């Protein structure tokens, strides 16, 4: 059957679950819509009050940025850091460990299934935001094409990173403080609170050394036609380098974590 067959089977199961709880699935999307919309409104207001433009962004430019950012953030986020602690504490991991494949595969399919299904709802929302706030953007064709692999790399990089961090649950039960710190860092340094070029100096410096920008800001700016081909190539390289580091890390931490894992009962 192989990995592909496994992915198909897992896709069907997850899709069925989400269809069962479709209202819940929709409601959970809500927070992901409100936050970018709020920042969209805030930054458009600032742009308008300072002569219609802020850096390279007009108020329509902000509309495009935050509408696309909402989609990219949605497509790349994961809830694994919330879930892992429960898995470890309740011994749910035992069942997963019995399977002959690495549990990360099932999580990836779970995540992608939910994303694909909710996109049906989120795409019209993004289109509405762009229409309601007069979004302006005109990307060249190559940038749109280059966006696809950048988005795929962004998803993988973020997923591996968060899966690694989630494994902190093997060592402590108080993961919520760690999780929240991580979410705040991502909020500021991945371009969700403002485009990174607008962050004040010291914050922008921090953002440039952290990996977060490569999974939200980079694909967004790329598809909006804000990057040159050279910047795009450099972005791919940075994504690939961080991805390689994340792959090594996720394997190391998993091995160490599983050794520590003990299930009660079972």
């Amino acid at each position: 059957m192989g990995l592909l067959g496994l992915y198909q089977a897992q896709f069907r199961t997850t899709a069925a679950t989400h269809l069962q709880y479709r209202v819940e699935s929709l409601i959970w999307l809500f927070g992901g819509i409100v936050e970018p919309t709020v920042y969209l409104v805030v930054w458009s207001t600032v742009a308008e009050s300072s002569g219609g433009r802020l850096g390279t962004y007009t108020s329509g430019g902000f509309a495009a940025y935050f509408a696309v950012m909402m989609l990219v953030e949605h497509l790349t986020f994961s809830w694994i850091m919330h879930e892992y602690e429960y898995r470890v504490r309740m011994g749910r991991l035992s069942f997963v460990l019995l399977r002959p494949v690495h549990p990360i595969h099932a999580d990836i399919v779970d995540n992608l299934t939910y994303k694909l299904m909710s996109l049906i709802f989120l795409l019209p929302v993004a289109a509405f935001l762009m229409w309601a706030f007069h979004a302006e953007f005109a990307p060249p064709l190559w940038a749109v094409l280059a966006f696809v692999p950048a988005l795929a790399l962004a998803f993988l990089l973020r997923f591996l990173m968060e899966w690694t961090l989630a494994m902190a649950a093997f060592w402590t039960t108080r993961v919520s403080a760690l999780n929240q710190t991580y979410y705040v860092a991502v909020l500021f340094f991945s371009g969700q609170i403002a485009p990174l070029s607008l962050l004040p100096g010291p914050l922008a410096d921090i953002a440039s050394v952290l990996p977060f920008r490569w999974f939200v800001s980079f694909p967004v700016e790329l598809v909006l036609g804000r990057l040159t081909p050279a910047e795009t190539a450099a972005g791919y390289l940075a994504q690939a380098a961080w991805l390689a580091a994340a792959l090594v890390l996720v394997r190391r931490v998993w091995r160490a974590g599983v050794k520590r894992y003990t299930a009660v009962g079972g």
Partner: protein
Amino acid sequence: MRYLRLAAVYLRLGVFNELEYRGNLVVQVFQSLLGLGTALGGLAVVFSYTDNLGGWAPAELLGLLGVYFVVGGVINLVIQPSMQRLMEDVREGTLDFSLIKPADAQFLVSVRQFQLWRGVDLLIGLGLLGIALRDLGATLGPASALAFLVALAAGGVIVYSFWMMLSTLTFWVVRAENILVIFQSLYQAGRWPLSIYPSWLRYGLTFVVPVAFATSVPMEALSGRLSPAALAGAVVLAALLLWLCRRFWLRGLKHYSGASA
């Protein structure tokens, strides 16, 4: 008076409960400070480009953030946990134990569960308000201070009635708490002045989900830009919603049948 004493009893119970988990206080303080840092950081980034947002000065936005933390703190301190418990009780049939107590059941279920450590947000909010008031001090008269307190009380009543009504839905719908997620995520829109939103969003934040009454309206009262008519409107709406919420609760109770009886 008797009801105040009852609320105090539940508060004390909450205190005892949480004193058993003192480590959580550290975590909660940390998370609240992180929330504060996020909010202040967002404001700092915005105000590095402008000195007013939709006509609001930085000190006024700081005050708005204070109100946001105060109201959010009250919600998380007692409203949210109590409503959560109410919905569980209805689902499991254990609401019986509250109904047979010789006090008003709606009151009991509303103050029954305190998550003490979530009150940290309340303190942070008061601190922020204090700082904002010092900066606004020169322009603040007793009239606007009074209007602020009235608007804040009205906002609190409106938010409570809204939560109570949605939770009362649980008598008919099993999973009503999902609707409350919508309020929780929309609430963050209240950190910014209502006037910057386009009219359709402003309307939604005022009348569909009453976030505006909880944060923007009290702060407008404090900075003296709320008209007396708007303040009166908020008070009338609060009274109306409270009355509706009471009627709805009583109807819901009629619909309730315990599980074990």
